[in-house]
């Protein structure tokens, strides 16, 4: 590989009117690295994540993918780069079935006119759910009838479906019970071993200590701390999140 980073962003800025959501953020992530992204509410985590996934277009900044400069200006371009995202608000369509949600925008079709190949659709969805150990009785069920955990699982299964190289998870464990959190964390370790870069946004600090290699702390739209995991303790991490990182050997 001619570049050590899977993905690199430089000087990302984004304002919403007077509110400067991101004020020049740099972000790098290596293949197979799990990066924790933390910060208080309003620090810019979700905006940064939306920039990564092409949902929000930054006012300024550069985007490099596998060392090459790219332009991510729509969710489609991000997907074409194999950047997959699980959004905090899940982004599922309630009235569509599990399988239709998983393949939304990438349905397997046959004949002309985009008729969905139902057999392939449901078989592939079932296969994916089984692979991830997700228990949903039928892929034909509408998502609206499901529990928070099941919906979360469907969203994660969708993101994992098309061999992501970068997987972005925004609060993936927020709505989950203990067992389900365990499943998500196992999943993260699992994909990391396959060389997938993971960006994990969460308020559950214990999750970070379990899976992350590195943690980036955002505060008021800027990165104020960026260190390998072993240089943090729960205490120093909380200090950073509160806005006053310890100046030891870090940035």
């Amino acid at each position, binding site marked *: 590989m001619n570049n050590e980073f899977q993905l690199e962003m430089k000087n990302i800025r984004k304002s919403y009117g007077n509110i400067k959501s991101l004020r020049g953020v740099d972000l790098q992530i290596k293949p197979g690295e799990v990066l924790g992204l933390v910060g208080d509410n309003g620090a810019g985590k979700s905006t940064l994540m939306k920039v990564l*996934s092409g*949902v929000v277009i930054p006012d300024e900044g550069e985007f490099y993918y596998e060392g090459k400069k790219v332009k991510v200006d*729509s*969710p*489609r371009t*991000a*997907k074409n780069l194999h950047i997959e*995202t699980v*959004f905090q608000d*899940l*982004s*599922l*369509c*309630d*009235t*569509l079935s599990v399988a*239709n949600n998983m393949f*939304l*925008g*990438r*349905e397997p*079709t046959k004949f002309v*006119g*985009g*008729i*969905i190949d*139902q057999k392939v659709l449901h078989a592939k969805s079932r296969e994916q759910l*089984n*692979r991830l*150990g*997700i*228990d*949903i*009785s*039928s892929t034909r*069920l509408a998502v*609206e*009838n*499901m*529990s928070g*955990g*099941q919906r979360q*699982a469907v969203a994660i299964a969708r993101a994992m479906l098309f061999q992501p190289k970068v997987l972005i998870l925004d609060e993936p464990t927020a709505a989950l*019970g203990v*067992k*389900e959190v*365990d*499943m998500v964390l*196992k999943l993260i370790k699992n994909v990391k071993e396959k060389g997938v870069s993971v960006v994990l946004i969460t308020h559950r600090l214990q999750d970070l200590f379990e899976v992350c290699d590195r943690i980036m702390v955002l505060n008021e739209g800027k990165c104020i701390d960026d260190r390998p995991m072993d240089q943090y303790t729960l205490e120093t991490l909380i200090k950073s999140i509160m806005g006053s990182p310890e100046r030891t050997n870090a940035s």
Partner: protein
Amino acid sequence: MSAEQNVYISGRIKQESHLKKFIRENTSVISIFGVLFVVSIFFSSVTNSFLTVNNFTNLIIQIAPNIIVAVAMTFVITTGGIDLSVGSTLALASALAATLLSAGVNGLLTLAIVLLAGVSIGTINGYIIAYHNIPPLITTLAAMMYIRGIALLVTGGYSVAISGQTWLVQLGRGRLLGVPIAVMVAVIIAGMGLVALKYTSFGNYVTGIGANEEAVRRTGVPTRKVKIWTYILTGSAAALGGLIIAARLGSGSSNIGNTFELDIIAAVVLGGTALFGGAGTIIGTIIGVALIGIIQNGLMLMHVSPFIIQIIEGFVLLLAVFINVKFFSNKK
């Protein structure tokens, strides 16, 4: 898969019998079909002429244009939109067709021009709604006014007789193997609509946009284009409907199709398509169109005053929306 990996997401959903599942998923369609049945029995018992082959043929010829437009409207409403301009488009199409044919333009060219007018109207509506986020209610209300105005301008307010022989009038009067051509066209379009809404990616996007537009956008689907296409469907369907009506009546007029849009919306909503989007059913729409057609037809056969028919129709629309919002819409 190792036992250790085998971590399950809990909260399973009970398996139910196929019949129960079918009933739960199709409650709205089944109940509207029940109403249709009861209303038909009522009219059959109070009038002698309702349950006759002649009346039935008449009825299906009359509702053919409504089915065509209502199928298209189902797509628009399923995205969470609405198109109030179909009645005016219907009138413009009929006026345009009659005027062109009287001026000696040949059938094929007339057909092309009228359909193109419908496509253009749909494109303009869709563009304003999808790309500029103007509420569909207002956009198409404005269109309803200016399109009717254009239709009046074309005809000068008179009705224009279709003179001369053209194959195009077969669209309204002709039969093939004993079946009225207009009905055939309606059946073909309904069939295509059914497949498109239920079994294609496009139908998935339409339903998804009604349920959660941002979610569909985030998967990379060009949601704005999908929305424009739904308005092109209603625009061109209304144009085709106007053409069929003009062909049947042998004249075009800028005054037809007043409150046509309300009949169509009532039919779609009665059929069980969620008024605020996210769920649509073509079968329901067809039954809805049939129900409204039968109510109008039956009341007329009972010699009920047209004023009273209008009052009843108003309440049917209200009832349709009421039932739809209270019982069938997904909870938002």
